[in-house]
């Protein structure tokens, strides 16, 4: 049984040693050591996920077991959801490090220690059972991310993007600490299980205020509307391996933090109230806003960033439904979306490497020589739409039966985001139609990130993209994923089982009964989404052959100037929106719970 501490300790030790010996170690050693460390994390996390399907277990650091009801130390709670997210983080980090083998500009050797620290922080965040420990790993994740985002220092844009990212997320962290302080004063505890028990049934204003600040902090990281403004800026300028980690797992961990908090600390307080509706509303708004903005973008990385915002909104919507089936679907969605998004970013990185630009008009027809990358891009687009054969379709089939009206939101968001990716594919890789409208944001940051740009794509660049898209398709056909998802969802929601695990050491997970899902209906909706995405993409690309009044995709693509002006690039604006979001969240919570 590998110690859970190794999930965090090993990457940190290797990162520190790589930093200490930076000038002595050759590039290939740093690459190899990082890849091996990340692969080791992947193995351990997968082992723990398999273990957590039968028994969830707690691990106390320093040997500090609880004294009666009082928890003295910090614990890791190895449950299905947490271990699976740690495994996803390790998988994406391994692929990102393979992608950056040798030719990727490593910033003087500082890239590898920061990536490993980032991995350690994400792994620790996913399985932590202590509130302040969650905060510490949140800060660690953020600091490594700020530094990695600003890696390309040749131009001012990466620094502006990293600065906006840093200011917004730091404000979020301080609001979170305020919430932690409120909860500490209310209960004198920092352990999630102990807090949940101490707060059970308490509706008073202190608990509500703490919930508002803590949830705001996590939702900023999760890039929900209106806290999302930092994400497109950060993605437009970050190097590709870093974008993969941001969109594949970091943003979703922000959502997971809010989920974990609600399911352990606040479940007892808010049981029977309509507080989960807040997540539904925020999720739906984010999904639709993100999808609209995604279609209007012409910078590939910004486009993919908005699609991340949209899909994370869908995940929040699924969480707000607060049912075991929806949470099982959410599990599959997290993994599937992470893989598909990572694959698309790797393909975008290949385009950047070969053609030194990320602008859709500038790339028009230039991708026709990339015969191997093009199929991956198109499959990725279909995967985002939730077409049959991809994990996202399976996930949506679990979620939508819980509340049939959500199918509309999933449909619109999936279709628009998938259509945007397919539209780019049709223009770049096939060369249909014309180059499309040019806009200001499409020309941000065109400096290459590899040492020898323009060189033909080799295995190191291609394999991660193939692995991700392929993985998402494999998940779409593998029957076992539904069982894993259901078991994880069941233990996630089961607070008394969680408390038992924390105080008694371990809990046996009740194997959930197999659910008869409406398979045919799910496949039909999935097929409809795939077809709709392809149709909208073709409609946008061939707009000149369509009569002007019917050209709505082109209108969506070309206009929306006042809405797009909101992404102003000014950090003061972003923080102003953040405070607005916090105030609105506060109003909603107090109205619904009092």
């Amino acid at each position, binding site marked *: 049984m590998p*110690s859970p501490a190794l999930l965090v300790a090993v990457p940190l*030790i290797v990162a520190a040693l790589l930093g200490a010996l930076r*000038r002595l170690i050759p590039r290939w050693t740093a690459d190899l050591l990082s890849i091996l460390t990340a692969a080791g994390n992947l193995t351990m996390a997968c082992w723990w996920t398999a273990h957590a399907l039968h028994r969830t277990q707690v691990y106390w650091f*320093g040997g500090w077991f609880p004294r009666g009801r009082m928890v003295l130390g910090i614990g890791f709670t190895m449950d299905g959801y947490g271990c699976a997210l740690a495994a996803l983080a390790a998988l994406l980090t391994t692929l990102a490090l393979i992608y950056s083998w040798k030719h990727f500009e490593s910033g003087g050797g*500082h890239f590898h*220690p920061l990536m490993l620290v980032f991995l350690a922080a994400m792994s620790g965040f996913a399985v932590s059972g202590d509130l302040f420990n969650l905060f510490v790993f949140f800060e660690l994740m953020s*600091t490594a991310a700020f530094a990695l985002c*600003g890696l390309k220092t040749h131009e001012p844009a990466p620094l502006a993007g990293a600065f906006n990212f840093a200011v917004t997320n730091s404000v979020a962290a301080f609001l979170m600490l305020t919430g932690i302080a409120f909860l500490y004063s209310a209960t004198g505890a920092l352990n999630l299980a102990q807090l949940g028990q101490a707060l059970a049934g308490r509706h008073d204003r*202190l608990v509500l205020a703490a919930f508002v600040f803590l949830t705001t902090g996590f939702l900023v990281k999760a890039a929900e509307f209106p806290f999302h403004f930092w994400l497109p800026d950060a993605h437009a300028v970050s190097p590709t391996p870093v974008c993969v980690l941001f969109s594949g797992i970091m943003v979703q961990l922000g959502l997971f933090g809010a989920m974990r908090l609600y399911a352990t600390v606040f479940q007892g307080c808010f049981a029977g109230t309509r507080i989960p509706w807040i997540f539904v509303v925020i999720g739906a708004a984010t999904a639709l806003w993100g999808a609209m903005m995604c279609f209007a973008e012409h910078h590939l990385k910004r486009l993919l960033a908005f699609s991340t915002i949209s899909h994370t909104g869908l995940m929040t919507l699924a969480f707000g439904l607060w049912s075991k089936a929806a949470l099982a679907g959410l599990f599959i969605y997290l993994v599937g979306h992470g893989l598909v998004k990572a694959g698309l970013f790797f393909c975008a990185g290949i385009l950047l490497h070969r053609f030194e630009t990320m602008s859709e008009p500038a790339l028009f027809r230039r991708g026709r020589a990339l015969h191997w990358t093009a199929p991956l891009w198109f499959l990725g687009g279909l995967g985002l739409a939730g077409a049959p054969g991809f994990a996202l379709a399976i996930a949506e089939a679990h979620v939508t039966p819980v509340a049939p009206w959500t199918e509309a939101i999933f449909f619109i968001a999936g279709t628009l985001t998938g259509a945007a990716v397919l539209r780019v594919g049709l223009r770049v890789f096939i060369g249909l139609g014309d180059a499309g409208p040019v806009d200001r944001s499409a020309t941000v940051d065109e400096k290459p990130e590899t040492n020898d740009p323009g060189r033909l794509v080799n295995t190191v660049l291609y394999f991660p993209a193939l692995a991700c898209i392929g993985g998402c398709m494999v998940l779409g056909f593998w029957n076992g994923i539904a069982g894993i998802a259901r078991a994880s969802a069941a233990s996630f929601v089961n607070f008394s089982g969680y408390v038992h695990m924390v105080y008694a050491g371990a809990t046996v997970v009740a194997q959930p009964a197999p659910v008869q899902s409406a398979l045919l209906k799910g496949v039909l909706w999935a097929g409809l989404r795939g077809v709709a995405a392809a149709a909208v993409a073709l409609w946008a690309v061939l707009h000149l052959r369509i009569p002007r009044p019917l050209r709505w995709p082109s209108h969506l693509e070309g206009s929306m100037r006042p809405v797009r002006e909101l992404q102003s690039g000014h950090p003061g604006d972003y923080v102003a929106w953040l405070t607005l979001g916090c105030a609105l969240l506060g109003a909603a919570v*107090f109205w619904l719970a009092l």
Partner: protein
Amino acid sequence: MKAGHRLVLFAASALGIAWVYCAGALNMPAWGQYRGPYGDAIAHLAVYQRHATDTVNAVTYDYRGFDTLGEEFILFSAVTGVMLLLRPEPGRPEAKKGKSSGNPASFRDRATLSETVQVFTTAIFGFSVIFGIYMATHGQLTPGGGFQGGVILAAAPMLLYIAENTDAFRRIVSHPLVEFLEGTGAAGYALIGVAGLAMGTAFLTNVIPLGTTGDVFSSGTIAAISACVGVEVAAGFTLVIFEYLREILSREKNEEP
């Protein structure tokens, strides 16, 4: 967004946040009436369980030592980030080491510092180093510890800079050993934790003999971790100072006609 609109948006939202905060604060236990069981339990247990008289550091490096490991690595990644962002670019003339680019204070006015100030500041440098080491090693007994001692140690070379003893300053601050010490200090903390694993207990268990309460060599791993953290923090801050200094100097060099 225009500045005026932003202000209006912020003003409305700030009222909301203030309302939520005050609603929470009014429901908190009265100020000065801390009731919580966690702090009192630790205050009663720490001296007996860990032979450490400073319970704050017992919490920092033992009871919640895993948090502090994370915090130490936040410092490590921030320092690495500064080195990453301010790294020298190929093709740009770097500030040459040695005397040729002159005194870094040369961009100030040319009035020289009086000898009294120079002598005293250089003397205080020695005292600062000793005081920093004292703070870092006595954290388990009295308020102090690795973080505080490390910052004092890192601030000591700045006294040399103020005393215009720039050669000594530059030699200390740009030494390649500093980066090595930073990495090993950070790794050292995690390796002490792994020592617990190697002995069959949990990560970061206090496996070193605890000694007598009140002695410098007491409280087991608390003292050892505190020392590692002191080394890492001192080296980390020194690296940050060096990176900024190099950035300023290379800018000066580029601006010279």
